């Protein structure tokens, strides 16, 4: 009795499946082909998809490495000359303190 019921319901479902319309069958076929196409895509070509991202990552790493390791510029002799030549700061070249400034500059260099 139970097996008859199970068999009958199975037959009806099979009949319903056999009646699927052409549009649905066509879409199922397209779905299958789309799934299989991705499997056919050779592995050796897939790595090419990652080239742009890889190149960008390498470029970024190089920029960060070079930029990060660049030493902070310290004032050198040229900067001192600029300061002394600056018309807005004449006080450095006036008075009796000139020797003091020379001594201070030597201390900085050493």
């Amino acid at each position, binding site marked *: 009795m*139970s097996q008859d*019921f*199970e068999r*009958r*319901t*199975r037959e*009806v*479902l*099979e*009949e*319903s*499946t*056999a*009646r*699927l*319309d*052409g*549009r*649905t*069958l*066509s*879409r*199922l076929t397209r*779905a*299958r082909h*789309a*799934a*299989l196409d*991705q*499997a*056919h895509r*050779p*592995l*050796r070509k897939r790595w090419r998809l990652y080239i742009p991202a890889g190149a960008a990552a390498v470029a970024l790493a190089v920029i960060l490495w070079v930029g990060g390791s660049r030493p902070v510029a310290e004032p050198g002799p040229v900067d001192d000359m600029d300061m002394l030549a600056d018309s807005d700061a004449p006080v450095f070249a006036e008075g009796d303190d000139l020797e003091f400034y020379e001594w201070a500059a030597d201390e900085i260099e050493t």
Partner: protein
Amino acid sequence: MTAFVIVRGVYNTPVLRDQESMASRALEQFLSSVEKRAFKIAQLGLRNDDDALDAVQDAMMKLVQSYAARSSEEWRPLFYRILTNGIRDMQRRRTVRGRIMAWLPMRDAEDDEEFDAVAQAPSADPTPARRLELDQAIGTLETAIAELPPRQQQAFLLRNFEGLDVRETASAMGCSEGSVKTHYFRALENLRTRLGDVF
């Protein structure tokens, strides 16, 4: 550079290409053998043709992407595991959106698209009376199945319609074999109660 040439050379050997081609043919045969029943299961679970097609296509894609290398005996339970998970996820999203489809009639996808005379052509059938009888049986049964609780519906369709055994059904549903037996028994009882006079 040398390594690349060697790898490429090995990959292009006729033996590997033949193996790849055989595996591809086996996959195509498998997908072709399950796609109609898979669609029917998704259609009954989702009550919408477009969503059902999306669920089947997603399951095909994921199987090929992730499990193509597995042995072909594993494909069926894996495929239905992916499909039932996809159906369940769609059902949950609908619940979240508040779209309670159980009280709505099955949407006819053709309503949204142009009429296709070839697609709509009736299949060859022995007699109009027999066809009408089958139409009624299909409608009644599918409505009853669609209204089963999801787990009972899955157990019934995978066991009775798709023909998976208890172990495969448990694998596909992600539950124990005992749960499969319980869900299947309750599904049969529910359907018998509703369809007893018709079937």
